């Protein structure tokens, strides 16, 4: 008895509307000729169109401001950047450093999880508000279920120095007055007064601003994936240009072994 695999019809058959390269001829992205119809786009406009299908200089400009103001601090102590600095000090390559830093940016306490999570939370909260629930009730349920609200609270410090400059930039290009950014700050007001004392962080601000531009959590996630590279690359370059191996070296005494002093012997 011949049973056909579900995969047979896909063999040498990848159908797509996303785009492709016609060697020696043209390149197509989402139905647009890259050389003729997208050739005047900025990189950010191109990335926005590639990732979301949206053509919007306004959103691209907003996103670019976010990348500059919020995501690429050139400090090698920040964990994703530290990976690039370590790659520099060991004389690895820039691309390997960047790849590792991008991957590490998919973190819980900063980076991509809060970015996606904050957008998701604002959409869910708005839906429940529209269904008649009180904001307090929505936040309390989130805290009860997850013990945190993405976009609020921050490691190391409480206040987020990026909020004000980001909002100033957003207003300067005509953003910052939509219902989602207002909701983001309403949640902040509640949480600041609660026993948790969480303050709004930049993830909720960016989520609110981009939800007002009708970006989904996935849209924001896809766009933000590369956003941190401008912070990682200078850390790599700096460490590459200094003495090899000298980035925060650790002496053996920096290991705090807590497993007990007994020396064991392998049973052969």
């Amino acid at each position: 008895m011949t049973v056909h695999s579900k995969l047979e019809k896909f063999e040498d058959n990848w159908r797509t509307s996303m785009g492709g390269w016609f060697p020696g001829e043209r390149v197509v992205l989402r139905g647009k000729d890259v050389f003729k119809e997208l050739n005047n786009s900025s990189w950010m406009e191109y990335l926005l169109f590639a990732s979301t299908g949206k053509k919007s200089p306004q959103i691209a400009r907003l996103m670019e401001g976010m990348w500059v103001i919020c995501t690429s601090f050139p400090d090698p102590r920040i964990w994703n950047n530290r990976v690039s600095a370590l790659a520099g000090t060991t004389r690895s390559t820039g691309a390997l450093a960047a790849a590792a830093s991008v991957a590490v940016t998919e973190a819980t306490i900063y980076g991509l999880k809060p970015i996606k999570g904050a957008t998701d939370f604002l959409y869910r909260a708005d839906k429940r508000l529209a269904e008649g629930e009180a904001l307090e009730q929505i936040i309390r349920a989130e805290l009860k279920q997850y013990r945190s609200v993405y976009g609020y609270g921050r490691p190391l410090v409480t206040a987020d120095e990026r909020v004000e400059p980001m909002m100033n930039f957003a207003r300067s290009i005509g953003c910052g007055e939509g219902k989602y950014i207002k909701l983001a700050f309403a949640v902040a007001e509640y949480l600041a007064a609660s026993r948790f004392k969480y303050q709004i962080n930049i993830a909720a601000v960016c989520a609110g601003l981009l939800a007002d531009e009708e970006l989904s959590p996935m849209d924001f996630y896809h766009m933000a994936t590369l956003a941190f590279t401008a912070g990682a690359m200078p850390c790599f370059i700096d460490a590459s240009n200094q003495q090899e191996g000298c980035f925060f070296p650790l002496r053996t005494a920096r290991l705090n072994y807590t497993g007990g002093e007994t020396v064991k012997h392998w049973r052969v």
Partner: protein
Amino acid sequence: MPEEITETIKTKIWRETPESDNSFAAASCFCCGYDVYRDILKNASYIDYLYLLFKRQQPTPEQSALLEGLAVALANPGPRDHSVRAAMSAGVGGSTHASALIAALSVGAGNLGGSREVFHAMEYWQQCGTSLEAWQQLIREPPQLGREDVWLPMEHAPGFDPNGVSCPTPVKQTLAHLVGEGEGLHLQWLNDNRTALEEFAGCPLAFSGVAAAALQDLEFLPEQAEMLFLLLRLPGAAVHSLEQERLGWRKYPFFANGFKLNP
């Protein structure tokens, strides 16, 4: 050490003593209490040491044999596997060798046949144990994500191949071999109930499902299992990438006629 330095790395795995002439070089290294270069190096196998690193204790001969069998079964998924294809894609283009392994890790991390699938399968084991009814219920009504995560939701029962037809012979051979090596009951139970579980899942058992059962028998946590699965599959990715690097892109499929852009 300068007096003002107080930040340390807390660890239950590793202890070092310094060389007398250099505080930044170790004279001796102890892993979970065992002297690595005086004792482990001479007396332990690689698999034993791997077990020690994860579990912080020396394995029994049965645990060692089970992990050894799993490591051999997973070491090379073969050049048709997605993670190995990723590594070969790095190889044919002349990319760095590290990028080939990064590619294999990134692709081999996923929900389909990858380490995230093993993670989820371990969660199923934790939740269902050896209750067939519990497995049926969980497969029928899988856990829903309450809020969005960077991981996409599972699209099939973890540990099973949604594109499979019947359980492939190597999967059955691995399961049968590992049942004979270990002491735990999860592999045996999986072997006894495989066809019922496949019926619930609507598709056959996969290597990820066998790996999860083996690692459940070895009492690994889901996150430990996820990491180990990634590690154990890298040798195949490495050698196939190197092989294709030598052969070059002209001898590797480009799917020149398989790509169709919708109008």
